[in-house]
């Protein structure tokens, strides 16, 4: 069942179209990531859902209640939607416990117990309660912001790039922790981010926004392996896009005949393969008896876990391949390339 339904949301600022008829459904208890380059309208969509901006047209329905429709918008404080923003937006003049208790009503004893419970939910020590926001690290501030938003038991939690202000190692840790906390609290959440890997690993559903339009929405695997167009493919990760002749469930391209993820009508099309799908072997020794496509290495770059290798295949087409970092590829080496898994035809 869909908890949140956005239908044809549009918003412009003067001549600039920020949202152009975006429709999105979010299932109860799920995590959705809205991802897109800066200026794609993802923050505007979030602010329309939160009630900080009113859409020019379109509907937002939460749990069967209309939040906004043409010319009508429920103000933010009556929406029962929690939000955690990029820098946490903690109130600097209040202690951690007063920040968390800010949205709570009810008597003082209840309140104290609830605040301690929330500190526990976000995995913070009770001793933190009397600290002030400036005495907390970035990660701790985000935990407090999450606890503060959880306190009112909102129906929906919005996360507006909450990890982008953290450094890389902490970011990953916090992303997992937040996913766990949301799961514990059985909370439906929408994450807005420009970081595709964050979106893919955090969410059950990923929605890609570009130029104010929703390009594609689906599971992370669906979007990664079956993107709608080349731009989406490149946005979600490195991709090799090749021209091919389609013949049923087989694509004929410079790499040879490659099986497709689904049968397509015959003709010319563009197919996408992820670099991890390739394996590379030395053409001379050819220990594995590869039947792959021959080529020559034109570029190598060491990246820790893997080499990024560019191989020029028939007709000079460059193909990017990820290779086990224990190997030692060198420019000029003659190699063969095999493809594991299936290629995907880009419909867009």
């Amino acid at each position, binding site marked *: 069942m869909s908890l949140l339904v956005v239908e044809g949301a549009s918003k412009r600022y003067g001549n*600039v179209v920020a949202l152009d008829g975006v429709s999105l459904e979010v299932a109860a208890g799920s995590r959705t990531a809205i991802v897109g380059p800066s*200026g794609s309208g993802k923050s505007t969509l979030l602010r329309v859902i939160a009630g900080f901006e009113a859409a020019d047209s379109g509907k937002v329905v939460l749990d069967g209640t209309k939040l906004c429709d043409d010319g009508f918008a429920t*103000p933010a*404080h009556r929406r029962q939607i929690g939000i955690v923003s990029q820098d946490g937006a903690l109130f*600097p*003049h209040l202690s951690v416990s007063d920040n968390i208790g*800010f949205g709570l009503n009810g008597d003082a004893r209840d309140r104290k117990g609830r605040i301690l419970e929330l500190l526990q939910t976000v995995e913070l020590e009770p001793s933190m309660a009397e600290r002030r926001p400036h005495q907390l690290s970035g990660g701790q501030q985000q935990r407090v912001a999450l606890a503060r938003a959880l306190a*009112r038991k909102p129906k929906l939690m919005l996360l507006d790039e909450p990890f982008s202000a953290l450094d890389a190692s902490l970011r990953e840790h916090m992303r997992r922790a937040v996913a766990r906390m949301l799961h514990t609290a059985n909370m439906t959440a929408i994450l807005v981010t420009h970081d595709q890997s964050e979106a893919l690993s955090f969410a059950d559903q990923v929605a890609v926004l570009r130029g104010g339009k929703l390009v594609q929405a689906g599971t992370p695997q669906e979007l990664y392996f079956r993107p709608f167009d080349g731009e989406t493919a490149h946005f979600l990760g490195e991709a090799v896009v090749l021209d091919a002749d389609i013949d049923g469930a087989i694509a004929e391209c410079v790499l040879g005949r490659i099986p497709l993820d689904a049968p397509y009508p015959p003709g010319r099309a563009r197919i996408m393969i992820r670099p991890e799908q390739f394996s590379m072997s030395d053409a001379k020794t050819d220990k594995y008896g590869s039947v792959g496509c021959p080529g020559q290495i034109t570029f190598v770059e060491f990246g820790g876990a893997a080499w990024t290798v560019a191989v020029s295949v028939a007709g000079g087409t460059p193909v990017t391949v990820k290779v086990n970092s224990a190997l030692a590829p060198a420019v000029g080496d003659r190699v063969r390339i095999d493809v594991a898994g299936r290629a995907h035809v880009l419909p867009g």
Partner: protein
Amino acid sequence: MSSAADIHPLAAASARPSGRVAGGRPYAPVVAAAACVSLVSLIPLGFIVWVAIQTGWTRIVELVFRPRIGELLVNTALLELFTVPIAIVLAVALAWLIERTDLPGHRWWSALAVAPLAIPAFVHSYGWVNAVPSLHGLPAAVLISVLAYFPFIYLPVAAQLRRLDPSVEDAAASLGKTPRQVFLQVVVPQLRLAVLAGSLLVGLHLLAEYGLYAMIRFDTFSTGIVDVYQSAYNSPAANMMGGVLLLCCFLLLGADSWLRGGERYARVGPGAQRPPIRRSLGALALPLMALPLVTAILSLGVPLATVARWLTFGGARVWPVADIASAFVQTLALAVAGGLLATLAAAPAAWLAVRAPSRLQRLFEAGHYYVGSLPGVIVALALVTVTVRLVFPLYQSYATLLLAYVMLFLPRAMAGLRASLAQAPLELEQAAMALGKSPFAAVRRITFPLAAPGAAASVALVALGITNELTATLMLSPNGTRTLATEFWAMTAELDYAAAAPYAAMMIVLSLPLSLALHSQSERFAGQ
């Protein structure tokens, strides 16, 4: 991908002003309030235009093209032309020595370079007239003006020197520039805006100041206007001189914006910046220490010594406790009331400037700032005429005096409030609303507490200005008003310098903590 995102037209959307509430309703009542204040601030300008129309061209020519006006104009121009450059050289030299060399005790010198601001200009004058009775004419005016006003240039220049990124200087050095070339080609050009901002302030003060020049009998436009006004109030002659003075102000403002051009202060980037490099003075340290030392002796020592000398000579006779207490209480009451009113009046425009910047808002802001750059005499002349003609019951009332204070110190209140409202970003209010608070409750519980310290500071800044204000107070205050400044002035007019000393001392004692607080705040803003 990121390069494609950068050129995407929608990237502009993220730069839009975020100052609208849901549904894009503008803050209509706030806009109306800011418009009202802006209209009131136009009274002095409107007054001059109205007088000019009333007077008629032939009469204007008669009143303006007189030898007396020419004399005042020459005096004022010479005062500006000598004082501003000397003050710039002194302030930049001091700021460089204090901020960028290993001069021993630079923290103390820095405080001493700002402290002269705590002494009202006419008390500087009082100090010098007593110390060197033969002082008179242009040299005396320039000397005292430089000593009283150079901190206005020192403050922004020192702040800018602290803020400059040393890596730029390193880059210049690595390109083969000698330290001297680095200073002249890299550092000095970056000080331009700070020097301009300070010089404009000094220039406007030179035009506006009455007490300083009246005491050494040096005639400028402001003293000339007050003289004419005192002999025959509401005379067309005084009003026309006011018109010429207003033109001088606009000339300065225009020159400033022309010199400034399209440049703006560079934004300070995030992240820690290395502290600036301090040059080692070596054996020159002691001789060079003479500069801040002599400056401090002349700008602080002379007025303070005079006050102290008269206090000891005068003994108990000069401490009529009841009189002084009453002047103190009246001053404090006027200062606090004026400070509160000015802060209230500035609030709508400050709010719009932070939350909903727009073309209209910039117009309001310009109105708020222009009126503060007007000399007290012009504001006073305008209010006298308006009250006499239109609302006589308000003539020489406290309401009119407070209105003059609000107009004169509106920019101070604006600056303080803007900074404090910026402490309470819209995001926090929205966070409160997302937590179920109504917009009103969000403002009350989040924005007010966060902005309160800054608002209090702006009340204090205005109060400080009012405590040391003389011209408008003399011209507008109701009969029987006795403030520290007017009592001081009355005593010195009778040449009873001993009796004036306690009032001077009280004004300095009231101002000193605030001036030093201002100094430490500017250091903090520079990220040190």
